[in-house]
């Protein structure tokens, strides 16, 4: 079976990124997964075991002083070494800020081609076929690479399931720390709050707030409903621009794309740019006082009403039924 490389991101604190599961699951559907890891120090036994549990048959560990101090290029050097060592059928990276830059540079360096923002993969008689969800899910497009190595960036949260567990065979190489032609990292500034709520991209339920909330103080209404439902919190761009909530919560054309089981839009008009980030949700609920708001055109259940009246009642009604 042909090897498939998966670039596993490790945070500067040494944590394996959540994207590892989906990358190794996708790699396993195409061949034998090889986890490519860049680290300033050898991996712990726990990390090796964890990558095996997630399906890595092999781990190609590049140890370099440049990890965590030079931006992205150590990952490109490691991937390039792993391509030489394993002759893979495909290379997968997360569609993250680091992952896609590494994929892009690798494509130029080894003569491969990038298939970007992939939501599903399959092998068709040995040809790697990538599926993309285009224009906010309005189209499903399949693409392949003709001649050259396919390098895929995988949308985070899009691949479900987990690869069969394996016992990972560890190969460690040491990588020269090069800084020429690369940017240097001076400092990491971690996000302060570690939320107990589910992650927006992978949550089963998302509650989003829009300009209709009226103020950042009123945004607590969104939080209350989200916590009642065990949901992640999203927002429209209007709410982000108004400063009600951080930009990382933005759902839409230029924010995060979500496909939850249930999406509840509170005080969101539903401009086409917002719908592009949520219209593939299984069930959409909208509450808005404007009867003509475009969000109702895509809502399975819409309520024309005042969110400040309806939402507290909804919270009570849901709580009453779950007791």
């Amino acid at each position, binding site marked *: 079976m042909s090897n498939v490389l998966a670039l596993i*991101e490790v945070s500067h604190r040494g944590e394996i*990124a959540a994207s590892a599961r989906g990358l190794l699951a996708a790699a396993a559907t195409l061949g034998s997964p090889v986890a490519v890891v860049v680290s300033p120090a050898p991996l712990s036994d726990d990390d090796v075991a964890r990558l095996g549990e997630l399906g890595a048959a092999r781990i190609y560990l590049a140890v370099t002083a440049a990890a965590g101090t030079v*931006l992205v290029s150590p990952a*490109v050097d490691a991937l390039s070494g792993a391509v030489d060592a394993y002759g893979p059928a495909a290379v997968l990276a997360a*569609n*993250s*800020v*680091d992952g896609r*830059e590494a*994929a*892009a*540079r690798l*494509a*130029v360096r080894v003569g491969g*081609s*990038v298939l*970007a*923002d992939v939501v599903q993969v399959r092998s068709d008689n040995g040809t790697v*076929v990538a599926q993309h969800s285009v*224009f906010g899910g*309005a*189209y499903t*497009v399949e*693409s*392949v*690479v*003709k*001649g*050259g190595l396919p390098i895929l*960036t995988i949308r985070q949260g899009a691949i479900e399931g987990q690869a069969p567990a394996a016992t990972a065979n560890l190969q460690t190489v040491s990588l020269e720390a090069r800084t020429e*032609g690369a*940017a240097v*990292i*001076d*400092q*990491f*500034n971690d*996000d302060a709050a570690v939320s107990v709520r589910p992650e927006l991209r992978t949550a089963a339920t998302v509650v989003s707030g829009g300009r209709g909330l009226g103020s950042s103080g009123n945004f607590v209404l969104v939080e209350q409903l989200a916590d009642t*439902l065990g949901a992640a919190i999203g927002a429209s761009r209007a709410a982000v621009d108004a400063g009600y909530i951080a*930009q990382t919560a933005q759902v839409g054309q230029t924010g995060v794309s979500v496909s939850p*089981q*249930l999406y509840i839009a509170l005080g969101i008009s539903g401009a086409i*740019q917002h719908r*592009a980030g949520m*219209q593939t949700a299984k*069930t959409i609920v909208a509450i808005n006082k404007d009867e003509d708001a475009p969000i109702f*055109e895509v*809502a399975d*259940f*819409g*309520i*024309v*009403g005042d969110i400040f009246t309806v939402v507290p*009642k*909804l919270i*009570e*009604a*849901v709580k*009453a*039924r779950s007791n």
Partner: protein
Amino acid sequence: MKIVVLVKQVPDTAEERKLDLATGQLDREAADSVVDEINERALEAALRIKDANKGTEVVAMTMGPDDATQSLRKALSMGADSGVHIVDDSLDGADTGRTAATLAAALRSTGFDVVMAGNESTDGRAGVVPAMVAEHLQLPLLGSLISAEIADEGVRGVRQGEGGTLNVRAGLPAIITVTERFPEARFPNFKGILTAKRKPVTTLSVAELGIPTGASRTVVVSTVERPPRAAGRKLIDDGTAAEELAEFLVANRLV
């Protein structure tokens, strides 16, 4: 300092965008073409450097069909000094790899200290072209910045990472990409619109750039349109709508 801003003409996200189901390529008739907003933010950042330092030269560069000159004119009317338009029938439907190779060749011939671009376009959303260009030119890339300080000694910026931000820096020449956290672009004023007509736009073909012709290596094999969503129930709240919604959620096992 010479700054080249990469500009992409894209379908307006405020309209319904369509793909040609036979080719998988963009249906250019379906929606109006505009300068991608993220590129306008990159241009704004470049123009602010020019505002503060009159010796700065700002060049807007685009690759696209004949009508992409509209996007260059918009950039010139906002304040860019000149434009470069890479236009060639053989680039029709170019993939990210071919686009990046072409832009890299054009950047080499144009010359620059800094290249500025958006972190990802609103149509393709691949976010890989600037990094590919950086690899072709063997240059540092400071990607997905939320702020940047650009000086003759080099560029420093704050990058939006996955679980936080990073302070990053590089010497010049360098490539940077901006995110939506950068300020909104200025509107062209009347004087800008008038002077834009007299500013130079250089046209470059694939032959002039000396890059090999040839098809893109990524190929779309199928394009399927998702059936449009139908609207479901819509209630006017009479005081009982919240109860009905709770019933709906329970009946559909959503809570």
